[in-house]
């Protein structure tokens, strides 16, 4: 090659151009072969968010098995519940606030997620506190840290929506979007 430096400079510039494409995180969807339930995961600029469909019956069974008052079990009915895993893969500190996140349904309406402190306040009036089951409402994560718990939004089973979420990394605010998510159906999709 006549101008090897120019070639490498070209490759370097091409790599720089490709960096945003690499950051354009991809939403992956998986279906559990046994239950037929869906899960979605997106890793975007070091913030990993995973949502797993949970059947209303599963949620009710989990709370019932903790010997919680029936009113607490009933309080979850009418909510679309996901098992959620948040992980810091950024190599630095990041934080999030569930109160900043919104669910957008096909009619364009935005819906707040019900946060852990809101559930805890409600359950205290019902004589219980099982707040550990809900995803922490806020967290400041260091590399390798992760959290899990339920995220909840008042929508019927099978509802379709997009999730708009946000996080901060080194003081800078980032926004992410998970599209075409679906609340778990009322009954198992692959019922025995």
């Amino acid at each position, binding site marked *: 090659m006549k101008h090897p430096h120019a070639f490498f400079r070209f490759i370097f510039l091409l790599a720089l151009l490709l960096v945003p494409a690499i950051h354009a995180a991809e939403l992956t969807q998986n279906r559990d072969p046994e239950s037929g339930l869906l899960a979605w995961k997106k890793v975007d600029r070091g913030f990993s968010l995973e949502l797993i469909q949970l059947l209303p*019956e599963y949620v009710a*069974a989990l709370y019932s098995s903790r010997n919680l008052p029936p009113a607490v079990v009933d309080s979850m009915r009418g909510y679309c519940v996901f098992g959620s895993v948040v992980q810091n893969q950024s190599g630095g500190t990041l934080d999030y606030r569930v109160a900043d996140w919104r669910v957008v349904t096909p009619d364009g309406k935005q819906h707040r997620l019900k946060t852990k402190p809101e559930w805890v306040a409600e359950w205290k009036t019902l004589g219980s506190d099982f707040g550990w089951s809900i995803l922490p409402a806020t967290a400041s994560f260091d590399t390798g840290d992760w959290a899990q*718990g339920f995220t909840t939004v008042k929508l019927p089973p099978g509802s379709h929506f997009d999730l708009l979420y946000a996080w901060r990394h080194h003081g800078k605010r980032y926004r992410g979007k998970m599209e075409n998510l679906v609340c778990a159906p009322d009954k198992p999709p692959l019922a025995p």
Partner: protein
Amino acid sequence: MLLSLGIALCLASNVQAALPLPEMSHSFTSLKPAKPASDFTLPDLDGKPVKLSDYRGKVVLVNFWATWCPPCRREMPSMERLSQRLKGQPFVILAVNQQEEADQVFAFTGQLEPAPTFPILFDRNSTVSHAWNVLGLPASFIVDKQGRVAYRAMGGREFDHPEIEQTIRALLK
């Protein structure tokens, strides 16, 4: 109704088993400056009170957990392996269970291999976890010989990973 609940519980276990939880991390975050650990006294499995400050002069791994929490279940055998590796050293693990009863804990620890030999304590009202500003389970803290919280970790860890063992051995010196 009972059949329905049974099916739901089966689904629950299936879903839990199917949850693609992240790989266990093996890093702790250093807290600088290390702050004095909030003292606590909690009952162990025999009801005997255990006080954190009684372990001054030892390195203490304080782990907040519950039996229903999948990563807590996954990490506990590695805590026991770590405990065995550091046997004879001034090192203690205190596993602080959240809002559960002894029979629930027995049912879980009875299945573990290796079974935990370190104290399991009961924080039935989560008073201690709130004082330690624990936001989610599991959460772990390493308290140094001077009684200061030197490291913290949120989420499950592979405790017998060389990196974590090295962190603790450095505090033992």
